[in-house]
């Protein structure tokens, strides 16, 4: 494994250097939990965070994002793009893979969403290998290790970090920082860290894996478990909000007090909410909670698999933690495969 070795002070120099020309977003402590926020100083960063309340998608698809600014009296509109250079620092492998899926979603069908891409193309990703927490199941969905999708990937190695380079931008960052190449023993320490991490992921699919889970879902359409879940699910949409690969949105117009200027905005939406598939005539194509849960779980493990070549669930466990009644994709998959 080729890479560089970064000590704590190297990391500090890196962040301080980046803060001169980038908005630097990193995990910080927020009351009892962690959250990705724009940092003011290096010391805000919590390298030991478990996972964040919201995934880093909020910086690429903000909860409310202006697409157009319009003037009603003139019938004129202009698109609004944000391309602030941003560093997403400290992303765990699951969140890195999730952003790869967002990239796929916002470029597929030859429809390039510049509102997303302009931000994305100005974004550097510096990953950080993680200490698993209670809800992780990344080893079942092929997101336990980051293979690509980052500029730099940091893995704890002794009292420093083994830094793997994933792009030209990453290579330049390391050169500018002037750090020395990691030794074989540093690489070994990083490998050991990853091996230890793998052992700590205990929540797993019993009978299927990242490739075969889609077949399980495909044959479980009429499984009675969907009805059982309907009894528990509150259809609150929390799982959609905290999911790093839920990118569905609604579009709404917002007019200012002069009733002339306004903005067309996209707003996070969720397939678990009752009106999601309802059309103008009043017909609701997924009226029942069981239908919506089945849709969501299929979307994560089956529907998008054909196009994205992978489950889009990345096993971060945020949905389980956010769910009031603890509906859990691992339990669902294991129940379906019984």
């Amino acid at each position: 494994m080729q890479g560089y070795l970064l000590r704590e002070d190297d990391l500090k120099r890196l962040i301080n250097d980046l803060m001169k020309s980038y908005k630097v977003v990193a995990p910080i402590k927020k009351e009892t939990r962690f959250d990705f926020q724009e940092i003011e100083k290096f010391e805000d960063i919590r390298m030991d965070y478990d996972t964040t309340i919201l995934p880093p998608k909020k910086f690429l698809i903000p909860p409310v994002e202006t697409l157009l600014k319009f003037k009603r009296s003139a019938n004129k509109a202009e698109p609004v793009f944000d391309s602030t250079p941003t560093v997403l620092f400290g992303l765990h492998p699951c969140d890195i893979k999730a952003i790869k899926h967002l990239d796929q979603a916002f470029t597929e069908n030859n429809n390039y969403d510049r509102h997303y891409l302009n931000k994305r193309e100005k974004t550097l990703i510096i990953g950080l290998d993680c200490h698993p927490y209670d809800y992780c199941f990344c080893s079942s969905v092929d997101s336990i290790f980051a293979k690509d999708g980052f500029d730099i990937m940091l893995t704890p190695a002794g009292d420093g970090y083994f830094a793997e380079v994933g792009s030209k931008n990453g290579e330049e960052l390391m050169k500018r920082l002037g750090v020395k190449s990691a030794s074989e023993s540093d690489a070994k320490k990083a490998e050991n860290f990853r091996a230890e991490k793998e052992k700590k992921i205990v929540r797993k699919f019993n009978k299927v894996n990242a490739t075969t889970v889609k077949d399980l879902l495909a044959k479980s359409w009429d499984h009675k478990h969907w009805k059982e879940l309907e009894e528990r699910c509150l259809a609150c949409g929390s799982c959609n909000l905290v999911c790093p690969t839920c990118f569905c949105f609604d579009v709404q117009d917002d007019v200012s007090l002069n009733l002339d200027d306004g903005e067309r905005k996209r707003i996070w939406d969720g397939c678990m909410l009752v009106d999601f598939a309802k059309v103008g005539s009043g017909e609701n194509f997924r009226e029942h909670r069981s239908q919506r849960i089945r849709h969501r779980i299929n979307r994560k493990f089956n529907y998008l698999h054909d196009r994205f070549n992978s489950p889009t669930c990345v096993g971060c466990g945020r949905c389980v933690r956010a769910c009031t009644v603890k509906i859990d994709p691992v339990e669902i998959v294991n129940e379906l495969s019984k």
Partner: protein
Amino acid sequence: MVANPIEKSLYLPRLAKMTKKERFTDKEMFFEFRFDDNSNLNHRPGQFVELSIYGIGEAPISISSSPTQQGYFELCVRAVGRVTNYLHNNMDVGSYVGIRGPFGNGFPYEKFKGHDILFICGGLGVAPLRSLINYTLDKTKRGDFGKIYILYGCKNNQEWLYKKEVEEWQNRADVETLLTVDKCTDPNWKGNVGVITTLIPKVNFDVNKTIAVICGPPVMYKFVVLELKNRNFKEENIYMSLERKMKCGVGKCGHCQINNVYVCQSGPVFDLPTVRKLQEAI
């Protein structure tokens, strides 16, 4: 990631001017729109547009005119939500609306060439089918297709859309048009009374060379398909246009998804074998 050099928003509409507005029923109105540069919409029958009014919102509307009609396009809009009610009540000839699209696949009419076509329209479902009906009836295209059958049903006698045009279809020797109302509300009505499926046994089509094209309210499809199957219709010759909430039209927002397809990308037109594989489709 593939770089797209154009700084272009998928969500920016172009403006179209309303050039005709006509009331059909209590709820439905007919509109004609033109772009100021006289360009065509360049659509296929069966496609839809996103119609928007700044400050009100955006809604998917199927295109009702044939692409053979140049220089303008027509929509038939039911007032059910904010955008459509605003369009009905607050906008007049001369007003501008935003248009994105055309979106969706449209009907594969190239494959229909040389075939007879059986149109089955329920209520507002006549709006998208009219695009294909008028395409096939256009004098430059008529020779490409065999017999044309049009079955059109409404809830009652007050609900007819495109009434004058339907009469023209009835008067054409090369078209067999059959109408029905679920409930008769006109004492002078001499046509059929009953749901749309009651018209199917009355048509003497040749299943070996007829394509069926269906559009109507969601509840209609299963029963029409069943009736066509009773007449030994081949599944691959049955096409339908499905209604879903196509919020963005560009395969991003997720609202129109049925199983693994986005209706705005792979539809709204599907053949029956495809629909059979989509468990939530009909």
